């Protein structure tokens, strides 16, 4: 994992492509429930549409790794956490409302 370059970003500023913007997303789920499957499917689709080739998704099943819930303060599942680029952003739910996911992960700016 490479450290992202220090770039000033804001919603108001016009988006310009940054050099090597790696996106690191982490999806927390509990078990293979329909909600978690739907969330992963939705997340993959959004990433393919907006971040093709620039993203990396880790899926964490809390049922298998309950310890990890504490680190990212996970209560609700499914939760997707944007670890990179900073700051950390969190979206909860099955990610069915794509518009909200884009706002939540600040993907519009990345486009």
């Amino acid at each position, binding site marked *: 994992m490479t450290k992202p370059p220090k770039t000033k970003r804001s919603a108001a500023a016009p988006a310009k492509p940054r050099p090597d913007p790696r996106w690191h997303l982490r999806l*927390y789920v*509990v*078990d293979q429930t329909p*909600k978690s499957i*739907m*969330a992963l499917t*939705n997340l993959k689709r959004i990433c393919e549409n907006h971040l093709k080739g620039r993203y990396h998704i880790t899926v964490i099943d*809390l*049922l298998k790794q*309950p*310890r990890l*819930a*504490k680190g990212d*303060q*996970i*209560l*609700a*599942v*499914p*939760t997707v956490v944007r670890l990179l680029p900073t700051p*950390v*952003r*969190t*979206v*909860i*739910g*099955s*990610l*069915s*409302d*794509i518009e*909200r*996911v884009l*706002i*939540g*992960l600040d993907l519009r700016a990345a486009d």
Partner: protein
Amino acid sequence: MTLLPKCPTGIQGLDEITGGGLPRGRPTLVCGSAGCGKTLLAAEFLVRGAVLFDEPGVFIAFEETEAELEANVASLGFDLGKLVRQKKILLDYVHLERSEIQESGEYDLEGLFVRLNHAIDSIGAQRVVLDTLEVLFASLPNEAILRAELRRLFRWLKDKGVTAVITAERGPEQLTRHGLEEYVSDCVILLDHRVNDQIATRHLRVVKYRGAQHGTNEFPFLIGEDGISVLPITSLALNHKVSDERIATGIPRLDAMLGGRGFFRGSSILLTGTSGTGKTIISCNFAQSACRRGERTLYFSFEESPNQLIRNMSSIGLRLEPLVKRGLLRFHSARPSLYGLEMHLATMFREIATFKPDVVILDPITSLMDSGTPSECKGMVTRLIDYLKAGQVTSLFTSLTQGGAALQQSDSAMSSLMDSWILLQDFEGNGERNRVLYVLKARGMKHSNQIREFLISDHGIDVVDAYIGPSGVLTGSARAAQNSLEQAAVLARQQEAAQLEREVSRKRRALDRQISSLRSDYETEAEELRRIAEQVGTKTRLLTTERVASGLLRQADTKTARIRVSSRNGRSH
């Protein structure tokens, strides 16, 4: 029939009220407004459980971080960090920031369940605290999902078999702001923090306890140096043992009025009177006499500082300072308004527990009464008396009667709790005020019904003889006047008797003189008579002798002559 199993909290008084603790294996809701001690109660539940009952516990904090929590409960003497290291308590801070969270689509709180489950299993916890769940309502946007999940959570906690305490903020119209009482139906405890007359008091009430009897009253509780203590009054039983031993009051004649031997050990004594009637002096006298017997005395003074008391008492010959230095006497002075009634009570309990006195004096209890409502005060005094009686500690309470109030009425709230009641009073009249005392009641002993005057002099207190005049009891100079009147009367009678005695003895002497002069007269005459008789005898003998002689001369028959002489003896001349 099986009773609901209880999980003792280890919190002083709470287990008494709930009849043994919280419902085991079920969630309990603790609700109250901000700053009323919800978190501390929950934390103490866990700490006591881990320390006293060997039941590990999990604390899920939604508001405070682990470090903050540790620091907060450290003020109550709980070393949370140590218990965490010993794996007896697990702290988990759940942080949620709504601004960082975007919601998209359906979700559930399985993450919380997983965390909780993991925490519980990792230390084998039997107790769980969720403080404060309602933060979720502020952090998570979808209330419908949240409510459904909370319902599932409480069900899950029950299935897990842990005894849980869930705290919640008090709402404006319901017990909790978000209606959590809907979900937690087994036990609901309401905490309250009220300010009365600028003095804040905390109260605890068990609103609901399914399947168990519980005290439904509002009980004052306080957060002291050693945690929370709830002060249940109504659940106290009257079953303390009693002593037959009697202890002197320090005033011999007052002892005499109390059946000759003073108060019972371990009894409660009330000393009432208007201001300046000598309540403190009698109390100090009692303290001194107890200390002289080697008994430890604890003196709670709510109006005077220890130094002032010592100085004032030395003016009447009570030397208290050496007793303080020897560690027999201990003063504890605090302004009544310093803190609330419960805090005073807790402070007193702590002082009593550490000093272990034989005699406790509260001077005056009435100034403490201003810190709360009459019923609270009565409750407090009841609690204190019961505590002291259980330890066979004799207690003396002084009570100031306000001017104008009926002497017996003003303390009606307290008097029934007292075993002995001594009333001090001012008698006005004759241009002076004089102090009197009488025993209004003394349970279990014969006592004097007299009103007695008592004097305060350089040598302490002296109860003097009662003088009953036509207008009632005579006191002060009236008593002195009566005294001298009676003495004058006695003197007059004595003088009269002496006069009479002198008269009689003079008469006796005159009589004696008369008798002796008569006797001497008589003796003179008798002497005369004897002399005459002697003279007559001599003459007769001479005559006879002469006759015989002449007869001899005439050579008469001797025999005849002798007979003749004898027969004619009387008329011979």
